[in-house]
């Protein structure tokens, strides 16, 4: 999306225009849902809905570009995740079953190619979820959120150098898992 197009969409969304909110939702909801599903597969849908309601409550005060908006939405998602964990005092860092990652999100344009691509994406995300939590957080935020090292550092409350070290270890770990045949072709 160009800068002008994003500004137009953002101002429409801030005014409560459904068309603008739909554009933002379709762009980010699949990513946010995948990110939440890796950590809380059973609660991911409800958490995602809460994230969008928080976005609606605060979008009137948001100032920034598209990258900033993505970072803001993922910041909200991360907070919602932590809130849920605090409330439930549970951690689910087990590898996520493939069927949970793909469940309940089949909608428009459900053609065979899309389904296959989606399965590939779900398999990839499931493999990333097997990394240690801090490493998988970094990779998911960087890949799903298209976020920079600096943005991820802010969201996770770490220094950029620590994020670079984590992503380096995560990529090496993924390479090892793939070379050992952890991914089913």
């Amino acid at each position, binding site marked *: 999306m160009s800068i002008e197009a994003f500004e137009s969409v953002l101002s429409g*969304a*801030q*005014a*409560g225009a*459904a068309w603008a*909110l*739909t554009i933002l*939702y*379709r762009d980010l*909801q*699949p*990513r946010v*849902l*995948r990110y939440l599903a890796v950590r809380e597969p059973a609660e991911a*849908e409800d958490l995602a*809905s809460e994230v*969008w*309601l928080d*976005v*609606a*409550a605060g*979008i*009137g*005060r948001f100032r920034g570009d598209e990258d900033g908006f993505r970072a803001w939405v993922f910041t909200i998602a991360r907070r919602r995740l932590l809130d849920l964990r605090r409330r439930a005092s549970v951690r689910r860092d087990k590898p996520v079953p493939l069927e949970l990652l*793909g469940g*309940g*999100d*089949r*909608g*428009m*344009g*459900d053609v065979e190619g*899309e*389904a296959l*691509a*989606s399965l*590939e*994406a779900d*398999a*990839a*995300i499931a*493999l*990333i979820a097997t990394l240690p939590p801090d490493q998988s957080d970094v*990779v998911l935020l*960087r*890949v*799903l959120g*298209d976020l920079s*090292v600096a943005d991820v550092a802010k969201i996770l409350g770490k220094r950029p150098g620590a994020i*670079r070290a984590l*992503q*380096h270890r995560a*990529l*090496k770990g*993924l*390479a*090892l898992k*793939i*070379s050992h045949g952890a*991914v089913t072709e």
Partner: protein
Amino acid sequence: MIGPRDPGDEMRNLLLDRDTADRLLSRAVAPDDAPPGYAGVAGLLRSCAQLPPPDAVRERATIVAMTQRIRSHRPATPSIHGRVAAGRSVRLKLVGVGVGAMLVGTSGLAFAGELPAPAQRFAHTVFGSIGVDIPTPELPSHHDATGGSEPPTPSTGFPTTKGDEISGLARDHTGRTGEHGALVSGEASDGHGQAGQPHGQSDRPHGQSDQPHGRSSQPHGQSGQPHGQSDQPHGHAGEPHGRSDGTHPAQGRSHR
């Protein structure tokens, strides 16, 4: 014979510089262009972007809820038109308060007779038409001509004062020659000394001393207790501008 693979050795063989790691995570590296050992990672990260669109039913419900929430939050952030209207309203209120304060202040000054003469006459006319008595401005007096700043004295509707008597006596030249000044001075002082001169011993015609209107060199009659007055301004026991006993500003003023 080849032994089992050592993970430590493999990790050391997977060289990855910082820039390449960034490009891999940005999905900017194709599997064929990836460093040795990272082709699978490049493909895996690229496939992460192939996400299905959101569920249509859930999308509609979420958009409706978001729209309602945004509209419920909008009063907290008024539009530009709202802010302009609010600013206009505040300005109108300020102007109203200013006009009201000016009217009250002007009326107060008019009742006190402190307005400039034309304004005082106008106020007298306006308030007189509704039955409210407002003092008219005092005609220019000798005191005013010499730079005095006394308030205007009402010219009508008040009893004749001693000052008026003395003034009339001073102006009446008929049948009086040398004693005229002494007569006026004696009347003015009621037998007391004035401006350092004994009773009526002025050698000037019309009883005038060196100072105009029988006044001494002290401002406002503060010349050795003329006219039986104290050393207060106009010699009137702490009363401003000749109000010695609270009767009327004109009473007790001898320099007219």
